[in-house]
């Protein structure tokens, strides 16, 4: 038995150190936002499925897919979920996908980011 726990804080310390670079922080935060959106969509679909008492196999039948493809989707065993499949699953669960604009402030930040990047590209 190992009597002393290993130090597992390296990742956090390295990330905190790298986040002091504004470019790194911006890339991290952008990636985190994108990941969170995809994760939320897939988890909401799975939650809807559970609430409706529909098995993954049954859901797959309803969208004319293999059961394994739906199972892989909900357990992150498959990368890059296909939007058509995601839309079909939403429809089969009586739901729909929507794109909701963020706040005015968030959109202003996107425009500012684009402007900064154009200046950097031409400079």
């Amino acid at each position: 038995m190992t009597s002393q726990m290993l130090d597992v804080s390296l990742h956090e310390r390295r990330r905190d150190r790298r986040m002091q670079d504004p470019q790194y922080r911006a890339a991290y935060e952008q990636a985190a936002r994108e990941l969170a959106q995809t994760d939320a969509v897939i988890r909401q679909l799975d939650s809807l499925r559970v609430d409706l008492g529909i098995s993954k196999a049954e859901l797959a039948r309803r969208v004319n897919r293999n059961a394994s493809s739906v199972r892989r989707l909900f357990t992150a065993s498959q990368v890059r979920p296909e939007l058509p499949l995601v839309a079909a699953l939403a429809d089969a669960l009586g739901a729909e996908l929507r794109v909701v604009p963020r706040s005015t402030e968030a959109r202003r930040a996107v425009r500012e980011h684009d402007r900064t990047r154009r200046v950097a590209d031409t400079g």
Partner: protein
Amino acid sequence: MSPRDRGPRRPHGPPGQDANEQLPWSIVYYQAPDGTVAALEFLDGCPGTVDAQFTAVLDAVAAAPPPRFSGGGKWEAMHGTMGGWYEIRLTGPGREQLRLFCLLENGTSDELARRGLPRPAIAVITGMRKPGGPCSPSVTTSACGSLASNISRTTRVASRPERRSG
């Protein structure tokens, strides 16, 4: 040693089986017996924005570990000869393909304590990059297989990057 031989793992066990499954996982980096940490060397060599994306995926998966969907579709269970491994797949500048290879350190509290881990962890093993095309499965298998053969049953965790980078 194959990853499958490295002791019990239960990323897909029934929920509530162990309190550890409800908590965020740790992220640890495999340190070879010679002291090198291939995954950190790989990340340090990546463009900063790519490093940031890998880190964000690791954090997302650690916050909502398997079997939940997380990682935004960039975290994938590998198959075939790489069964038991997970990879993060990113495309960098110039369509460069970048991969980060991981194992899951899961088990009961006692099993984890024997490995020196306070809770389940994503063990980041190594990474690969290839300009303008997919990483060859045979090359991937070879690179990870040679590392896997060196991984002992006791997790080795790098803890002091400051020393390594001087």
